[in-house]
């Protein structure tokens, strides 16, 4: 399914509320003022991207491998791990061999 020519005309504008929802999904804190500034920028970019909808791709497969290549599989051998110091070396907060984060209530 591609965008058809109509889609570009009926496309939903990227508004402040959309930007806030997307920023929430992307876990980027954003103020109303920032969202208000970014919305027209994104809307402009998305409007330009809409031209892709002109292309008839009904008989085209999406690209999977840019250069023909087979997915190699590795052998089931333990070759890694046992490097806790390296794993924790850059942690903002590490205690008792764990990474520490604000308490999560599930």
């Amino acid at each position, binding site marked *: *399914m*591609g*965008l058809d020519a109509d*889609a570009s005309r009926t496309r939903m504008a*990227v508004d402040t509320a*959309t*930007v806030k929802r*997307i*920023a*929430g*999904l*992307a*876990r*980027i*804190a*954003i103020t109303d003022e920032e969202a208000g500034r*970014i919305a027209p*920028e*994104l809307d*402009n*970019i*998305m409007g*330009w*991207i*809409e*031209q*892709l*909808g*002109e*292309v008839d*791709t009904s008989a*085209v*497969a*999406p*690209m*999977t*491998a*840019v*250069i*023909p*290549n087979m*997915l*190699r599989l*590795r052998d089931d051998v333990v070759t890694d791990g046992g*490097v806790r*110091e*390296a*794993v924790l*070396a*850059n*942690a*903002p*907060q590490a205690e008792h061999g764990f*990474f520490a*984060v*604000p*308490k*999560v*209530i599930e």
Partner: protein
Amino acid sequence: MTDLTDLTVAGLRDGFRAGDFTAREAAEAFNTAVAGAKALNAFIVETPEHALAAADAADAARAAGEAPKPLAGVPIGMKDLFATKGVQTTAASHILEGFTPTYESTVSQKLWDAGAGMLGKLNLDQFAMGSSNETSFFGNVISPWRRKDGGNAALTPGGSSGGSASAIAARLCPAATGTDTGGSIRQPAAFVGISGIKPTYGRCSRWGTVAFASSLDQAGPMARDVTDCAIMLEAMSGFDPKDATSLDLPVPAWEAGLSPDMTGKRIGIPKEYRVDGMPAEIEALWQQGIEWMRDAGAEIVEVSLPHTKYALPAYYIVAPAEASSNLARYDGVRFGQRELPEGANLQDMYAATRAAGFGDEVKRRILIGTYVLSAGFYDAYYTQAQKVRTLIAQDFEKAWAVCDLLLTPTAPSAAFALGEKQADPLAMYLNDVFTVPASLAGLPAMSVPGGLDGAGLPLGLQVIGRPLDEQGVLNAGLAIEQRAGFSARAEKWW
């Protein structure tokens, strides 16, 4: 003795081997140049001790009569997108400020194994997102070039490998690593009058390189001439079992295979690259390039790549989509900066950390990527873009039936002033119009300097080749290089 910083990679390597100078002398000369060029802001971290250690090892090996390594005696710059063990690696971001990898990227390791030393970590657009090096958390990189018009406007070195470009053009290092996702090696190379090649996707391992867009990211060398690019690329390439997309192929002897003779080669000129508003000087240089190719024995054929105009919008779906996911790991839990406001829960911490840690352009692309992948939009945007990508690759496939290589301008303009395009993200994106199609198709492509525009700024020509035909690309680049005789260099002001 000549100024060692004027030597190319080949010149340094050969001079060292001949005993004209020691590796330490060469390293010291470049360390001094780096230390004296703060005004360019090309380096985020300087590592003179690393360069000296590699030089001393080379000198000791030579004294012991050992066969010299391929890059013994050559200090280089490392784009700060490659993880370097024990040396801060930031991708020019705040979120990775202070991040010190416990591991070495495959590409950098290969260079050290080849005997090269590291002068420092080069500045870049944040997470390699940008075409002007204005998105770095560590400040803009300044091009050593200035317009002849007497104005002293600071110019962009291009991006994202702007630090690499600026440092090579200013003779701070003879060569550097770059990465190219949509033109990040070729466009800056063109802007500062140097050469740079993006090899076929899969030639250089992506392991240990901070990811921007996995299906597009490819490392490659930037250097003063084509021969140096060949030497560097040989050292950087090769199969890596740690990267599932790495090509399991031997590395050709590109340097030994260099030949400027284009006899029997058909050079395609894609008509869709004649875009509206392209400066006449660039059109003229392109014509000149065609003449040079003919002079070198090539046959010129006009070809059509009909989906070219859709390459950029497809790229601005695929690259941000992949980036939005690739950058999810920067969350303040395991490494990098953490922002923890009073009373914040885990999800608040993520949002605050990422808001403070990413710059505007990175956020913009994460938002675009998140948007195009979000519920209900996946097929309309991402799937459609990947289908268009197939069509773009097929355009190239068809072209290869009638030609061996393609010749185009590298960028639609010469270097612009810093700040000039910052206000309009879209105008900035359009700068990649000639480089993005080859990236989408994974093809080898290089930029070589062709001449100067009326303002005295370098312009580049791009050669695009078939998959795995880096040799053909390098050879065509060499043919241009020999005919262009490009010897201009930025006058030192820094």
